[in-house]
């Protein structure tokens, strides 16, 4: 029997974006002069040519069914010349060349359940991952956590009432695909992997699993007469790095996989250099479908920041001014010994000065 003829792929790579871009953006490409924000959720850009463009930004659920996408297309066809773009945080943007269309476009989006906002000093959509829906290594969900939190932060998305922009992320394992953010919610495992020794030899490439461990806690071993791996549980930091290459090393646990909160990540170079976020809370339960304990801590931190930070201070800038002791005090969070960095290079995070705020 002959093999069926397979279609050879066209290795076209990344398509040209000009064919999809709003014509006013093509015309003024590289020639924009400034922008302002007439209202939350709306950007107004002015070109050196004198052309103007208004952008209306709306939140989406990211994981979209075709009916949602077609609804957004209908709105784009009716109001925005059939062009849209997405932001890195899964917001959709509609561009119009006529200011008069803005109000009716905003109304149409809101009527169809797409909140208009996410601009300027708002809390934008949460950058997130796949979670239970599609990931092979998740300890929690992503879309559900985001839906639950964005319900709580809805007004902050639609308004620009924070001191500076606020970017959030969630991640379902310690790999942190959600990324650095002003405030991030990340799984933190608290118990070493539980090993199914019957499966290791057949599924896992043992030397590469051994090599993955950041603390050299894994070593090859014969268990019940089968080649397997064992973990020095005193050394293990429960990071889960061994789990992706070796699924029989179960790290996820309904009780022992907890949620941690991190703050002060900043990708922009504005004012200070980019900064990594720091862990400030741990031990929150992984409690679907709405994770209320996590939402409570997140809202508390954001609320303190909102009331205490000065204009243009990002979370990191604010903490730099008030200092970590006052951050923990104001947010009513316990500073435990586990928050002292003892990883390699961690000594730079100790206070090597007499700078103490009283």
């Amino acid at each position, binding site marked *: 029997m002959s093999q069926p003829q397979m279609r050879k792929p066209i290795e076209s790579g990344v*398509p040209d974006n000009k064919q999809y*871009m709003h014509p006013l953006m093509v015309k003024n490409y*590289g020639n924009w002069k*400034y922008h302002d924000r007439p209202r939350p959720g709306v950007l107004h850009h002015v070109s050196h040519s004198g052309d103007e463009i208004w952008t209306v930004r709306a939140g989406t659920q990211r994981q979209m069914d075709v009916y949602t996408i077609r609804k957004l297309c209908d709105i784009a066809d009716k109001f925005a010349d059939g062009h849209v773009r997405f932001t890195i945080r*899964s917001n959709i943007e509609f561009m119009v060349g006529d200011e008069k269309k803005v109000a009716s476009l905003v109304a149409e989006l809101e009527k169809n359940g797409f909140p208009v906002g996410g601009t300027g000093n708002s809390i934008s959509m949460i950058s997130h991952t796949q979670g239970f829906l599609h990931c092979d290594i998740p300890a929690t969900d992503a879309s559900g956590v985001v839906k639950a939190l964005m319900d709580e932060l809805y007004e902050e998305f639609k308004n620009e009432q924070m001191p500076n922009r606020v970017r959030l992320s969630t991640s379902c394992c310690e*790999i942190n695909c959600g990324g650095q953010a002003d405030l991030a919610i990340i799984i933190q495992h608290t118990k070493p992997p539980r090993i199914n020794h019957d499966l290791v030899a057949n599924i896992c490439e043992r030397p590469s699993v051994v090599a993955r461990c*950041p603390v050299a806690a894994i070593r090859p071993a014969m268990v019940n007469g089968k080649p397997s791996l064992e973990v020095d549980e005193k050394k293990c930091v429960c990071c889960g790095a061994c789990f992706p290459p070796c699924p029989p090393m179960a790290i996820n646990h309904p009780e022992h996989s907890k949620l941690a909160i991190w703050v002060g990540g900043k990708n922009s*170079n504005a004012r200070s250099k980019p900064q990594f976020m720091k862990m400030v809370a741990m031990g929150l339960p992984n409690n679907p479908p709405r994770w209320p304990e996590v939402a409570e801590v997140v809202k508390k931190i954001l609320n303190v920041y909102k009331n205490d930070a000065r204009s*243009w201070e990002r979370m990191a800038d604010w903490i730099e001014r008030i200092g970590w002791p006052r951050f923990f005090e104001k947010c009513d969070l316990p500073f435990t010994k586990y928050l002292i960095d003892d990883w390699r290079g961690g000594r730079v995070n100790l206070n090597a000065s007499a700078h103490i705020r009283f």
Partner: protein
Amino acid sequence: MAKKMHDTPNLDQLESGPWPSFVTGLKRLAKDKDMMVDLLGHLEHSYQTRQGYWKGGTVGVFGYGGGVIPRFTEIKDENDQPIFKDAAEFHTLRVMPPPGMHYNTDILRKFCDLWEKHGSGLIAFHGQSGDIMFQGATAPNVQKAFDEINELGFDLGGAGPAVRTAMSCVGASRCEQSCFDEARAHRLAINTFVGDIHRPSLPYKFKFKFSGCPNDCMNSIQRSDMAVIGTWRDNIRTDEALAKKWFAKHGLSELVNDVVGMCPTRAIQLKEIKDVSKDPHVSSVAVNDSQALEINNKDCVRCMHCINVMTGALAPGQDKGVTILVGGKRTLKIGDLMGTVLIPFMKLETDEDHEKFIDLAQRIIDFFAENALEHERTGEMIERIGLMNFLDGIEVEVDPNMVSAPRTNPFIRMDGWDEEVAKIKARQAAA
């Protein structure tokens, strides 16, 4: 009509509340698709047991070694048969979007139609890798869907130890801070290395990200192996009409507290107009009849803060280009790494500039391919071998912009010091 729905008491609770509900979307799809009925059951089971139940495997399209994320259910009965059989396979295609994620409704509707036909009808715009994710298809349908997507001019992105899908900001298409043609550099880089995307054969992933200015909206310093960030080397531009308009609205307190006081290198001062320096490296702009902002561009680090606050009144200069950093990544395995400066400034305008950029990327990827250990990212490799060895390997000259500060310890062999000094002096003399 699809089969009967499973009870989903947990997921049902995610249909209330004002934010758009993905559960409501899944249920809409489940009306016609047995796959989505079972997907909802599968997800509800995860919510009830607080565990994930997908495993990877090997599914791909003809001619490529990556770009498909295979997912097989692990929820099985006592006979090892899938309990949610219509969602037993739920594979994802990663598809590279146009730079800046621009679409027209025609292409989006075509995506919807083909994914309704071959897949689940669930599409994510976009994943953290920057791809459009067509989520949920059986193995045979993955090829059919890809063929149609590919015919529309779209191609699969990266997965595994490969060059990965890149991301670029809205940039020149709608942002006044854009300092280079992000989309051009993005397409050129990815389409040059497209073979390294489709046939994973590197030690580990290699990511490019393109941000038009140092606001770095693409998180390139923290999240990419090669961060390309727009910048400029001449003076900040000013616009007096917009500066006065800004001042009239915001006043002296905000000017002092939010602009002058927040400059990280104290490069901005508020001065009487008559006292403003005439130095060619100074930008100045009057904010009222007697006072002006004076910016010493030699002290400015291009952080973007004052430009963000007074957009239009202050603007990036005209001698634009990019700063390139290498080696950013998140925590596993050795701890978080920021990208670090490799090229403080290069022009990225002409064809020749772009060739130089691609040549640099090629040298970095080649060096990475030859020298990194398995599952080691560029940043980890540089940490292990030292930046000096990396620079030697890719033939880039040392530059003080690469460090925050020179070394603070004496523990190094310095036999070659005199030769290095001679080399630098010769280079300076030749320049």
